[in-house]
């Protein structure tokens, strides 16, 4: 089987095989209303990547998508086609706002094999891309976060402004799209919450309330530790996207100075900062530079009703990061940034070490550090909480999982089964590699367990999962 061979790596033919990961062929956004008549088709296209493509081909591709969507609508008016799947590639369609269509065309992964007569043979791996359509949503949502809705852009400055904004945003973001590293967690688009005792949590609450009081222009605050969320003043949907942006884009870009430590040259550039470890991740780099730029990324939240435009200030001390969001009509000055630094910096430094200390105490109390016989991924649709013992570290470019990609694929398959039905379900799969994979769905929660017990039978596996639920999830209502 192709999948098994792909993962084996050390097989006899391994040396002759070449793998090509999935690749983005094109990405475009169009609105059929903008050029309904013949000869005006080009007006429909709001964004097209890659831009070098010849105009007529662009028009042809857009026309094809339009036709597919129209055609499939006759079968299912409320749910038109989401994707079209061919041997070589897959197209994903999404209509985030009425009449605005986003289309992503992805080439299937390829394995190049040597045939007996020495000629290369390409094998397309059609089933591997199931997961990736979700990237489209994530990227669309990020687009909203940083640009607002399409409609709002139209109101502000017509098609011209919309096109400019899309160009600016997607040009940069499509370069950071890493299709091969997408997995179950991308489908969920969940939020990892930092486990914390009540008292430390209340201290953080108190800190946030005090900061919002002293920096009175702050409208919303979010607090993260170790790239995990602790508090969000934003609504869930907005936080979900901000969280994705922070953990996959902003934080990874700032890892280096952190690792460099206090005495590194990067630190030395910021004298007068010896009282605390706080620094801006967005905004001014050096507060002592009178010409420092106080420019912060703009984000858009509550796009469904109040539609708010905000500046995003991200400030970090050790592993604790705070996002302060202020109304975009107010422009934070260097003085404000200095004040923020002097108020937030020392307190956040103390708080960060408190959290660290408390976390270590709790970890010690919960005891057993030894590697368990299972790994799991948990997701709750209600609060978007995700938890994974499968992933070691997830960055945009690499998803470092501790299990074989085949198993990850099975998880994806189980998930797509789950999405088809509303009722609670349980699926148990015995994988080729002697692993057991169990998927459970109960009251909007999903749990995926990978068990490494070769000789276990179905009943034993079931018992094992029950035990896991009793120990790891005893404080929630999760039906056995």
């Amino acid at each position, binding site marked *: 089987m192709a999948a098994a061979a792909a993962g084996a790596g050390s097989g006899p033919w391994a040396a002759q095989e070449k793998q090509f990961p999935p690749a983005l062929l094109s990405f475009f956004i169009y609105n059929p209303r903008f050029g309904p008549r013949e000869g005006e088709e080009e007006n429909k296209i709001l964004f097209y990547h890659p831009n070098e493509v010849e105009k007529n081909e662009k028009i042809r591709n857009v026309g094809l998508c339009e036709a597919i969507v129209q055609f499939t609508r006759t079968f299912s008016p409320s749910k038109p086609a989401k994707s079209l799947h061919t041997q070589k590639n897959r197209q994903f369609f999404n209509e985030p706002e009425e009449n605005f269509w986003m289309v992503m065309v992805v080439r299937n992964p390829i394995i190049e094999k040597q045939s007996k007569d020495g000629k290369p043979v390409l094998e397309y791996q059609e089933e591997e891309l199931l997961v990736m359509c979700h990237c489209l949503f994530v990227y669309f949502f990020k687009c909203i976060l940083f640009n607002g809705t399409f409609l709002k852009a139209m109101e502000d400055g017509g098609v011209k402004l919309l096109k400019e904004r899309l160009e600016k945003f997607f040009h940069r973001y499509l370069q950071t799209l890493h299709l091969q590293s997408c997995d179950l967690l991308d489908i969920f688009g969940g939020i990892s919450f930092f486990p914390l005792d009540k008292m430390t949590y209340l201290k953080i*609450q*108190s800190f946030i309330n005090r900061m*919002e009081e002293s920096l009175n222009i702050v409208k919303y605050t979010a607090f993260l530790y170790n790239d995990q969320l602790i508090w969000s003043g934003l609504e869930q949907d907005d936080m979900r996207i901000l969280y994705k942006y922070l953990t996959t884009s902003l934080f990874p870009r700032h890892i280096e100075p952190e690792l460099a430590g206090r005495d590194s040259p990067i630190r030395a550039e910021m004298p007068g900062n010896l009282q605390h470890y706080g620094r801006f991740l967005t905004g001014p780099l050096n507060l002592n530079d009178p010409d420092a730029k106080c420019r912060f990324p703009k984000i858009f939240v509550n796009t469904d009703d109040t539609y708010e435009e905000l500046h995003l200030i991200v400030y970090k001390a050790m592993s604790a990061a705070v996002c302060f969001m202020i109304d975009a009509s107010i422009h934070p000055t260097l003085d404000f940034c200095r004040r923020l630094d002097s108020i937030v910096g020392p307190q956040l430094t103390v708080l960060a070490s408190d959290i660290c200390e408390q976390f270590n105490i709790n970890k010690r109390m919960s005891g057993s550090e030894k590697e368990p016989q299972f790994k799991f991924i948990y997701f709750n649709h209600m*609060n978007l909480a995700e938890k994974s013992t499968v992933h070691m570290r997830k960055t945009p470019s690499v998803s470092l999982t501790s299990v074989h990609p085949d198993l990850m694929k099975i998880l994806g398959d189980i998930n797509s089964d789950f999405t088809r039905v509303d009722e*609670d379900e349980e699926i148990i799969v015995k994988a080729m590699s002697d692993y057991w994979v169990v998927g459970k769905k109960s*009251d909007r929660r999903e749990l995926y367990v990978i068990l490494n017990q070769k000789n276990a039978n179905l009943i034993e596996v079931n018992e094992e999962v029950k035990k896991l639920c009793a120990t790891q999830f005893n404080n929630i*209502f999760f039906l056995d």
Partner: protein
Amino acid sequence: MGEEDYYLELCERPVQFEKANPVNCVFFDEANKQVFAVRSGGATGVVVKGPDDRNPISFRMDDKGEVKCIKFSLENKILAVQRTSKTVVLPEKRSLKLLKSHNLNVNWYMYCPESTVILLSTTVLENVLQPFHFRAGTMSKLPKFEIELPAAPKSTKPSLSERDIAMATIYGQLYVLFLRHHSRTSNSTGAEVVLYHLPREGACKKMHILKLNRTGKFALNVVDNLVVVHHQDTETSVIFDIKLRGEFDGSVTFHHPVLPARSIQPYQIPIAGPAAVTSQSPVPCKLYSSSWIVFQPDIIISASQGYLWNLQVKLEPIVNLLPDKGRLMDFLLQRKECKMVILSVCSQMLSESDRASLPVIATVFDKLNHEYKKYLDAEQSYAMAVEAGQSRSSPLLKRPVRTQAVLDQSDVYTHVLSAFVEKKEMPHKFVIAVLMEYIRSLNQFQIAVQHYLHELVIKTLVQHNLFYMLHQFLQYHVLSDSKPLACLLLSLESFYPPAHQLSLDMLKRLSTANDEIVEVLLSKHQVLAALRFIRGIGGHDNISARKFLDAAKQTEDNMLFYTIFRFFEQRNQRLRGSPNFTPGEHCEEHVAFFKQIFGDQAVMRPTTF
């Protein structure tokens, strides 16, 4: 100076007696707090009045010369009169017993009835004080100590005057208070009051110095554990609290007045006489008069006007005189009648006009809860000791006294928070921050938070549609699990769908709400889930078959009905040896329904062996 500014006042109902004049001598007994008005050496009458006496004692005695001193024994049993410096007369014949004798050269003495300690002044400079303690018919000698006299010009001989010494109990400890006058030779900026702590055992030690920053004539009182220093020249008084933080130099703590100097509140002398002359306006009383005599702890006597007052501290005006809320709380929490004032301070700091910052609010809550926790701990250790049966063996075990400084959650809820959250003009961010700050403070002192506080938080969040915040609080268990809270969450489901899951999770954690879980699931038509849950906890032998069959029938899912019906048939078989339902289970209509859908053959037959 507004009227609300005076923080000291004379009591409303003074003891009134006949003014001192050439024929009427007035005496005061500190032990019984009685005033003796002796007319013409007692021949025309002696009137004795105490602070609590409704009916004054009056009697006559023969005029045998000038009375130097006159006193009753405790409980007014024996009268003693002193007419010469060396004799004391008891009108009835009694015998006195010599308990003990010590040989000392005594300059003067001072007796403190509350602590039953007498101080004797010895040596030429009069500044070595020898205390004795009377207890249960014995007299014990305590270590003597020396009062440091200020340096005086060579021409005058320094000595310790009786007038500059007082004894008083402050915060349960006996202190000797020495009024050290300003000396021109030293650098001090004014007079000071030096407090020597006189413990029951061990040596007397200089502990506190109260800086007066002025010179002139002073008098001391102790009221509600506060040292009050009256200054005649300026006709004002200041107060000191030795429990408030001062500057510690390694051995002595220096204190400054808690508040700016103020006069005692002006006092009107009520007009005595027939109702016809009430049109006369009351006469203002001359305060800080040179005829005032001050006694410990809180007595002021004006012999020329014929009044004895108790000095009192008014707490309300202090609220506005002490801007530092933390220090204000420290001060108020030590006062006897503090509860309502503290609650009003709390309300005030949450009001729109006088709103305090969150760190200040946090400090105030922490101080309240510190006192509250101390009391809870004392209660708990008392209860434990009683349980362990130590109450009889140890007479020292006393039920802790709940002072007014103990403000529990219900006090704060009733008098402060419930009104605060109702204020429409308050920004909800601030309301939530305050509630969370109070909950944080309670948690910090490990005090279990009452459910009504949680409900207040939830109510506020729901009112402002802040469901996601609520969700996060529940996720981190900031709001403790309880059945009422779970029910409240269930009721929120239509506004916020995840509330359903939150509620079920909470019911599960309570582990005493399994019936409720089943009801919730059945109401959602999750019959199979309900059955699996109850089976999972081993309760499926006791559930009502009818209830589950009803719910299954309502789903209009025949296969589900079949499964549930079969489950109960099997239960019947297992429990009673027959799959049939008993009449008591009232399942006839379900049996009929089952037969109608699946046929008579489908009904389980009794297994026979």
